[in-house]
């Protein structure tokens, strides 16, 4: 098993990587290109697991060389768990990439990084609900201070592939339930 660290550029991915890995890290060159990526090991339940810092990408439809490499690395490591690092204040943009990875059948853990900044910006995210809809672990993290990392590491083994149909279903189910709840409330108010 390997762990791939994926996410947009500028979401604090390299700080994230440094926090997860020990002292032994290598910068490698993706064969045939000049795109570099970092590789290291992290301790997971007493085992050393390889962790790869995949070059930043906005989506899996590559528009430059770095994104091309990201897509190739994902395809070449079918047996990996993907830790998808999102900027918590830009969830929508981040989910785009996360969903693409989920659609391809990878077990995913979503890290809502820079959580502190999102809180400062008064952005509130219902983590539990997000977790329920996506069906994958979602953990708020702040890479700079290290908050949320213990939980994140413990969730890696829980990650399992989910079907995108399921995500769509639960998204609309939850939203239907919510609107039904509202209507119900309205009706009862009308009755009384």
């Amino acid at each position, binding site marked *: 098993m390997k762990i791939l660290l994926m996410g947009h550029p500028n979401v604090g991915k390299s700080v994230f990587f440094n926090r997860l890995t020990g002292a032994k890290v290598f910068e490698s060159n993706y064969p045939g290109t000049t795109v570099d990526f970092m590789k290291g090991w992290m301790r997971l339940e007493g085992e050393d697991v390889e962790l790869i810092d995949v070059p930043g990408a*906005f*989506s899996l439809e590559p528009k430059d060389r770095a994104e091309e490499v990201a897509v190739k690395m994902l395809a070449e490591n079918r047996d990996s768990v993907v830790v998808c690092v999102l*900027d918590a*204040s*830009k969830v*929508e*943009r981040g989910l785009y990439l996360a969903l693409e990875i989920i659609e391809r059948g990878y077990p995913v853990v979503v890290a809502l990084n820079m959580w502190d900044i999102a809180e400062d910006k008064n*952005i509130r995210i219902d983590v539990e609900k997000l977790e329920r809809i996506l069906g994958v672990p979602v953990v708020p993290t702040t890479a700079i201070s290290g908050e949320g990392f213990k939980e994140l590491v413990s969730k890696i083994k829980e990650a399992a592939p989910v079907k995108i149909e399921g995500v769509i279903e639960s998204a609309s189910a939850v939203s239907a339930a919510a609107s039904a709840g509202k209507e119900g409330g309205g009706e009862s108010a009308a009755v009384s």
Partner: protein
Amino acid sequence: MEKKLSEMDFDEEGTVKGIEENLRKQVAGMGIREGKKVRMATKQPIKGPVVVEVDKSVTSLGLGIAEKIVVEVG
């Protein structure tokens, strides 16, 4: 009133109404879609790029791209 994104004034807010077809995919990754609220953060002089804010994230767009996005303001 509808106008081009490139014509928005500094600090003006608006809603994205239309994006030229071939541009849609490109800007979608940055979270710019129809129906999204945008704020003009800065405009660079001499036909320089614009900087807009969408959903609290800041994106810089070349003027030629900003001309292909229509916004509703006011």
